[in-house]
């Protein structure tokens, strides 16, 4: 019985190991020298990319907190309000997070696509749209009407998607 189970588990496990091995090598790409180049703002390229990814991850986390509560039968408003308040803060100054040289050519792992630097005006407009939507979401959240929060959450999410579809590499 046990041996039989092993017989079909082994190929499955081997497959898993193989797949995760591929994933690993893709992630530990060689970091080129440009990573340490200092930008006009005083950060290195690596620091800049990691800083923006950190902010964006915090926004993602806040969104999950809001989405969890919106799914619940009786949402916890306080949790939504705390999370909604962090979004405008985390997104502040986003225009400045993408200086020239912080694209994939830097050798650092980033999903930022090179076309960002071909149409910086449109890119910055999209950032502005998101910041406006996030500010609105925050003020609506503090007012406390769950249905309105749900709508504002959708709108804000749409402004993320609008940019990601064009300027972020699919994961």
């Amino acid at each position, binding site marked *: 019985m046990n041996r039989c189970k092993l017989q*079909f588990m082994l190929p*499955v496990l081997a497959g*898993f190991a193989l797949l995760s091995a591929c994933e690993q090598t893709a992630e530990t790409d060689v970091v080129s020298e440009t990573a340490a180049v200092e930008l006009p703002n005083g950060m290195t390229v690596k620091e800049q990319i990691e800083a923006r990814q950190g902010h964006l991850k915090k926004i993602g986390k806040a*969104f*999950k907190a809001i989405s*969890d509560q919106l799914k619940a039968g009786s949402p916890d408003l306080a949790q939504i309000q705390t999370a909604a308040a962090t979004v405008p803060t985390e997104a502040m100054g986003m225009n400045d997070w993408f200086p020239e040289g912080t694209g994939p050519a830097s050798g650092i792992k980033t999903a930022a696509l090179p076309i960002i630097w071909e149409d910086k005006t449109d890119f910055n407009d999209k950032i502005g749209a998101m910041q406006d939507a996030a500010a609105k979401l925050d003020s609506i959240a503090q007012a406390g009407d769950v249905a309105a929060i749900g709508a504002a959450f959708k709108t804000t999410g749409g402004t993320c998607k609008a940019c990601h579809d064009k300027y972020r590499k699919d994961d």
Partner: protein
Amino acid sequence: MVWDGALRLVHWLMVALVPLLWWTAEEGHMDWHKSFGLTMFGLVLFRLIWGLIGTWTARFAPMVQRIGSLNIYIKKLRNRDSGATFGHSPLAVLSVFALLLALTAQVTTGLFSVDIDGLESGPLAVLISFETGRQFAAVHELNFNLLLALIGLHITAIAIYYFVLKDRLVEPMVTGHRSRADFPTSDLPENRLQLLPVIAAAALALACVIAISNFG
């Protein structure tokens, strides 16, 4: 009757759902992805219950026993003799278990997956943190490749039976029937679909789907 109606229906619905799930995920139609995903969850659950209380050819226990004659069966295959088996052949049993395992892993991780922006998540993701949800999503993505590989293997095997061994396996999976004369013995197990177990398995699977989709 080799394959009962419930088993065949579930099989072909799964076949239809996999490309739909793939496409909806790629295109970001996540509302559809989650609805189809929950449907798939229901089908997988039904199939697992059916493996315990279903017809003889659907049940897991006789399948596990068949693995014992794997070596003999492979020797027969080497001699170009597919030796029709009533139900899954010892080799097919391995394929069934691998596919069901991969499908189970796929739907389970989907229920807990969170996308990178925190905007989309499976119905059970409220139970876990953003980071854990992201890990589920990573397994969900990785395991999908495994699932595709197993599906490829499954289809290749059927093609080999068709072209090399001249054994048409698709027909019985559509019609349910295979000629009695194909089997080495006429002493076949009782394999008729019974209403009560079908209703019980379907009701149980449906109840779980409803409970999960209304979770929270």
